[in-house]
């Protein structure tokens, strides 16, 4: 349990600032309902969806607002593979290494991606563009071997198609960056 001290109000204020409004509102709603602490994983999902990863300050804020020990937040965040504790690149590539993909040559796709991007699993390219990860199964085994780029599943894929796909996403990201940056 969080120890209640004099500066509680202040801590709550700081915590609220660390999180976007909709997450603070969600936590407050949960606090009115039975078993609020059971929503910890849901809250962490929201934080990751918003920031792309779980930062230290955000995890601390979640602990204070949801009133669960910080150690538990860290424990949960590290137990589940889905949670990321480091910032990710603009483009997240998830290579499926599940059985169906494995027997259809997923390792070659993975190797090609590593070669092209110059990074390994769990790493982000220096320019902050790509993060490479692997997954247990994306549930689209019928299309194996597959990768997921941001939210898009691509498959079946041959290693030689990798450079083309990277090129396509770089272009897309650049176009978006140009659109959003003021001239």
């Amino acid at each position: 349990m969080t120890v209640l001290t004099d500066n509680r109000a202040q801590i709550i204020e700081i915590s609220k600032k660390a999180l976007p409004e909709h997450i603070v509102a969600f936590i407050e709603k949960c606090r009115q309902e039975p078993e609020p602490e059971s929503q910890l994983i849901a809250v962490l999902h929201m934080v990751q969806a918003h920031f792309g990863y779980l930062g230290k300050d955000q995890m601390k804020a979640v602990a204070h607002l949801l009133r669960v020990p910080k150690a538990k937040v860290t424990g949960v965040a590290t137990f589940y593979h889905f949670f990321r504790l480091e910032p990710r690149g603009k483009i997240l590539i998830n290579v499926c290494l599940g059985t169906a993909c494995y027997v259809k040559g997923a390792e070659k796709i993975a190797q090609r991606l590593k070669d092209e991007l110059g990074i390994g699993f769990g790493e982000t390219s220096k320019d902050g563009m790509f993060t490479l990860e692997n997954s247990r199964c994306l549930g689209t085994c019928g299309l194996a071997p597959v990768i997921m780029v941001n939210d898009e599943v691509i498959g079946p894929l041959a290693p030689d198609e990798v450079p083309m796909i990277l090129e396509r996403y770089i272009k897309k990201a650049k176009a978006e960056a140009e659109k959003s940056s003021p001239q």
Partner: protein
Amino acid sequence: MPSSVQEFYQTLVARAEEAFAAREEGKKIVIQVGSATCEHAAGSREVLDEFRKHIISSGRKDIVLRQTGCTGRCSREPIVGVFIPGRMPVKYERVDRELVHDIFVQHVQGGAPITEHVLDAEQNKVSEYEFLFCDSSRCGWQGGLRIKDVFTEKLRAAGVDMERVKVSLASCFGACGKELAGTCSHVLVRPLKILYRVKSEADLDEIVQKQVLKGKIVEQLRVGDEPVSQEFFDVYGDVAFFNRQSRVALRNNGVVDPESFDEFIHYKGFKALATVLERGDPQWVIDEVTKARLRGRGGGGFPTGAKWTSATKNEEKIRYIICNADEGDPGAFMDRSMLESDPFNAIEGMIIGGFAVGAQRGFIYIRAEYPLAIRRIQHAMELCHKYGILGENIMNSGFAFDIEIRLGAGAFVCGEETALIRSIEGERGQPRIRPPYPSQSGLWGKPTVINNAETFANIAAIINYGGEWFNRLGTEKSGGTKVFALAGKVRHTGLVEVPLGTTLREIVYDIGGGVPKDKKLKAIQTGGPAGGCIPAKWADLAVDFDTLTQAGSIMGSGGMIVLDEDDCMVDIAKFYLSFSQDESCGKCTPCREGTTRILEILEKITGGDGTVEDLDRLERLAKLVNRSSLCGLGRAAPNPVLSTLKHFRAEYLAHVVDKRCPSKRCKALLHYEIDAEKCIGCTVCARNCPAECIAGARKTAHVIDAAKCVKCGRCFEVCRFDAVIRT
């Protein structure tokens, strides 16, 4: 007030039917496009847009566009259906933008199907009529020859143009009642949606004379009730991949629009729930489920009726029900597809389950990796609230029940029921010792029933068609069907639902179309990391919970991976072990340390350093981990090793004795050499070799420096003269 439930339901039906009728689909041309994760990956959204544009610019008001979920025909997506009133439904495969244009102009507007792009065009001709005969072992055709052949002969004798008519075999329609089983057979006439019950050759003559020649319905042979999968067969019955299936859990997949409440009602949705709430007797529901001999589809095969009964025996009245949609088996995607393509059905099953066991709250635990499934379930739940199907006083019955979604976060062990419960409570998902079982003490210490998503998907059908009926679909020991996610080295990958007792051969060959590229089938893997590999020579094994266990594998949740001669069994065992080792939650030593040690030995073997003694050590260790681990993950983790050791010992021996990998998969055991006779000195290999260890002048034979070679295989892949030898 019992009658008010029916009134409530009838109001829903009337409203839905009105909305459905207003679309006038019977008079219009319907273009149907699938929409689910795989379909999207294959480009179905672009296809949908393109059709929309075409319809708008054609200015025609008699063409409508429908969206459905996925039928589970992964390798041929996107699939587009064109339904012209009174004509046979036509489905196209691998549709892209250009094909959309042709389909629209030639078929939709011009009335002429583009035969070469029809789904499974190689075996599928477009005909006017199709007669689908039940070919299941339960069917009681007494007339000697196969009924299909008898009928075809009669058509010929009557001078029918065989181009117009197609005669095919289908899997069980589930239409033979108890008293009829073994005395008759059934035939579905497409596109008329008429089901005939035939007992004798005279009945067949009647159909030829009246139906085929005069176009009149033979009323006295007609079956009144629609079989469970009639709509499905009506749309997809012409394709072998589909008509060899029996769809119960998946009956609406690819038929219904997963985002439309009205369509679900139109296809008998919530009828079962209305029946249950009208009767108001939980015990009756449990009795039907028990009679159905429904066994849990999550892997263990525990009888669902017994599980539900044990929860009701508890004094505690606060109870929970959980739908397990964690689907962690890599290579399985049944639950995803069901939730994406028919979300209301899962919800209906859960509410009925909740009523039967006296639960007030339900939880759906879904993997976070399935965003579309989550969205569709969420959407379906909102509509259910809106129409009084969830919440207080469901369907006016006084029963109150609600469902919440909880997301997994990528931990395989959370599929295990006690771990899953911890995870819903917001904790690290570590299993605990059972007993007590969740049905005694589960979520927050209360009695909790936890069932797999497919288990729930069967419930409404059991209520609608009866427990007896469901029971008959399966084998003596287990009722119903099982959905498999067929993937790996098989021509048609996708979702396959067959009656329990169907053989592996029927699934892989008749439905899956066999192994591509003329390769030889080596094994069939079932049960994922907890299962094993069944050798090709056992392909005639009838699939059931017990038969698979006897064969050294397990049913599991339904992943089925076909392996061919290029797959190394030691490598596959290593693959699964590295999975289990990585996913072990670390709570108990046998699993945490044991899987690590097993994996080390397997790595030693595939690395070329294994000995014959290692095989014995492997077996001992595997049995130890199996006996002494705390939860199912550790207990089942050695299965892939034990089953491959049992069935493919020779392959292990080749690795440790001859230092050879017969399937040429284990890198460390391969050698690359260039055949000087065949090499023409084109230099391609040398230019592609990452280790720069291939030497030779242009137009002279090249040589590999084996000491430097990193065995990447590039040279073998790029040489167009078969000069690189891999041994």
